[in-house]
């Protein structure tokens, strides 16, 4: 039997409830004078999430198809690029990882459209340099420096 998306999500939520339930028990409770304490809302949230997950799990699914096979592949590639860009920003910093990421994102998102390489290069350079100066010099906000540097 093929598991529908909503049932799968409910199962994931139930799993999360179990983990969170045991974690809630470890929260230090310093409550006094009628205060129900720091565990009340987490327990309430977990109970509601558990009940809703069970209702969805045992009721008729209204989940429709989300993506075809090619769509799933594209989604995974895009998420993979986002993860790599995150790691790049953390370890290599903004100035190294951003031009590469901009070029990759333009290449991915263009699909079958033609892209003028000069415009794309201007975009890569302009976006990196423009954002860098806007944040660091204009707003005095630091951008990721990179742990390796």
């Amino acid at each position, binding site marked *: 039997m093929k598991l529908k998306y909503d049932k799968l999500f409910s199962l*994931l939520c139930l799993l999360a409830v179990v983990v969170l339930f045991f974690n809630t028990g470890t929260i230090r409770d310093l409550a006094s004078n*009628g*205060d129900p304490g*720091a565990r009340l*809302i987490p327990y309430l949230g977990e109970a509601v999430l558990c009940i809703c997950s069970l209702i969805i799990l045992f009721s008729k699914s209204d989940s429709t198809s989300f993506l075809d096979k090619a769509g799933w592949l594209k989604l995974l590639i895009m998420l993979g690029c*986002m993860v790599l860009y995150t790691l790049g920003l953390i370890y290599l910093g903004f100035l190294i990882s951003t031009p590469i990421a901009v070029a990759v994102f333009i290449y991915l*998102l*263009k699909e079958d459209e033609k892209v003028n390489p000069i415009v794309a290069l201007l*975009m890569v350079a302009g976006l990196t340099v423009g954002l860098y100066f806007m944040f660091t010099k204009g707003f005095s906000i630091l951008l990721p420096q990179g742990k390796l540097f």
Partner: protein
Amino acid sequence: MADYIAALGVCLEPMNLVLLFICVVAGIIFGAVPGLNGSLGISLLLPITFGLSQNASFSMLCGMYVGGVSGGFISAVLLGIPGTPSAIATCYDGHPMSQKGETSRALGLGIIGSFIGEVLAVLIASALCTIIADLALMLGPWEYFSLCICAISLVVALSKGRMAKGIMAAAIGLLLSCVGLDPITGCARFTFGNKALTGGIDMTALMLGAYALSQIAKSYAKGNPKLQAFDSRNIKGIGVRLKDFTSNIKTIFSSLMIGLWIGFLPGMGSALSNMVSYSFAKSTSKHPEKFGTGCAEGILASEVSNNAATGGALIPMIALGIPGDSATALLLAALTIHGLTAGPLMIQQHPVTSYMIFGFMLVGAVLVLIIELVVKRWFPYILRIPYHYLYTIILVMCFIGSFTSTNMGFNMVVMLFIAVLALLMDMSGVPMTPLVLAFILGEKIEEYLRKGMTYSSEGFAMFFTRPVSLIFLLVAAASILLPVLKPLFTKGKLSKEWVADD
């Protein structure tokens, strides 16, 4: 009144006007391009405002908000595709009117309808806000707790037919709001030994992950829409006649009131108001048969109400600290970033700042009117901006935004986690809005609940014995239970009728 004039003076300062102008233009582009919207624009602007003054920040955010809602009608009229959900009903008559060769008139009606809705709603909202804030000062933690529960229930109730999914989303939002230190005793919760989580889940990371990253990833996976080219030769002059407005005053007034009311209700922003207003205008019109064929009444009903909803949404945001829609949720976050707490005391303690927000909305509406009337002829060019450049800029801005929000690389990981969660919820049909609202109100709910129980010796009973609190709780219960119970009664009635007929 003196505070209002002082606030308007701040709004008209040259630097603020320039920033407002730039963001209004950006907002119109975000509103016009299908797939983008004003909320996304505001979430991208949030990190930029960290380094700016309060006045400059709100000029930018309000400009994006006003421009984003107004710009939605452009693609609705030109292509029949709503730029934002707030312009869905505009497609019904805007596009047919454009196809009849009256593109200029359709755009003119959209521009002026948006202006009327925005300006009148903001003026009414700024007057009502003070009254509601004064009333709210009489309320205690019991009423505030019930009000927050009522707000979440009203949003959950929108998930008709899949109530469990709506409640599930709210529960996830509530649990996400618990991450970090608890608001009363400061105990660490759900940090799993990670010090970066002690401060809780960052609002900017949540918004960017939920509304920007997940949307772009989904849009790429499904294939970006290919928009057809539009000939701009049909767009000449203002295009509208005075009669278009004088003969539809009743529709304009009813749409204004519907927009204001729906905007006031938490979670029900302009996306709903334009549909309700359009249906109401059609059902009360002398010529309902003309709706859908390109009639002015239909365009005005939709555009006046969706812009009026922005004014309505500002009332609970400023007077009660409860966001009316996702855009006001982001404005609320911006207030927090700048050290302000929205709520009944805000108007008393920071009157100029409070009225400044209304002022920026008013001046923004005037700028939108001027800009849109002047550049109307070039609207088709907005729709030709390639998605691969737009989305790339947005993606890079999202990562920088989440980093600069807390100055920690870990925040980008949180944003990615939220984006994956949003995608999982999307494919399972679980709505996102209850999660966002419960996340925003989660800390307040806990604070009011625990304060309410500490202040009284009656425990939970106090929430049911105070009349205002009880009313809010009854409304909350009714909004959840009625949609579930109604079909059961109808089904019973129908089957009885069927048996009798048989």
